């Protein structure tokens, strides 16, 4: 099993980094966004953290509210 995982590492690492970049960008934007109420922010934070890839994208497209 270890053998197979290390086999995939060259592709898994960039994938992981991309996800991380997306997540961090969305979280930073969310923390600076003052157009959302506190409750909305918590919900968005959950969406961003727990829905892989799609969550941060949905936030950046629809949740941003024009700045």
């Amino acid at each position, binding site marked *: 099993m270890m053998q*197979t995982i290390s086999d*995939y590492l*060259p*592709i*898994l690492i*960039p*994938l992981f980094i*991309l996800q991380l*970049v*997306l997540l961090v*960008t969305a979280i930073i934007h969310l923390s600076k966004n003052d157009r959302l109420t506190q409750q909305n922010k918590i919900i968005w934070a959950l969406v961003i953290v727990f829905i892989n*890839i799609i969550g941060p*994208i949905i936030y*950046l*497209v629809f949740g*941003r509210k024009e700045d």
Partner: protein
Amino acid sequence: MRGFKAFIIKEIKENTRNYRFFILGIVFAVVGLLSPLSARFLPELLSNMIDENITIILSDPTYIDSWMQFFSNMNQMALVAFVLVFSSILSKEYDKGTLVHMVTKGLPRLTIYYAKFTVMLVSWTFFFWMSFAITLGYTFYYFPEGTTDGLFLSVGSLYLFGILLIALLMSSAAFFSTVFAPLLTVGGFLAVLFILNLFPFIEEWSPLQLASRNTELLIRTNADTALNQSLFVSALLILFFLVIGSIKFRKKALN
């Protein structure tokens, strides 16, 4: 020409600040990475999940599986994301009335229209071939026995299909003022193509072949008459959408 250049720079700045380029870059890179990974990984995953009492024969994945995944991911994720992200390309400007100033200051409307189209076209070209390059690199890494015969034809036809959808998106953005109408137009266009595909005569001419026959083309490595017809029809449709869109945009109320 100066107006064209200035408007393109403005568009690029806007799209960068809107996170559009950022999102598309990530989505297309993920598609490029995911395709060889899932081609390689799925058979192993399946064989682990299946009960020992059941035997199914799984052939070893080849480079063709990798490209098959690429085509389906490209159609289902990347192209959808692209159309979604750019669906508000003109509606936002109508909404805020930001085009009015530029037109009254003497920027020709056609310049605006074609500059917006150029920006979409260039970003589609860039992201598409970036994703292609990533898949190509990893496919060679994991499936060294693969060849590149027929690759350009099958990938290039998908690229052209993307341009067709972009031209339709642009022209419907000139016709309708809301965000969702262009989206619905593109979706409706695809639905009509799928329905028309039921008739063999139309299927031979349908642009849908560009997005649905990619894997077959990869194996055949050369174009047949049906594909040539479909390339021809697509090129005509792209021109047609662009021209009627620009005619409409010249007379469009801008706020």
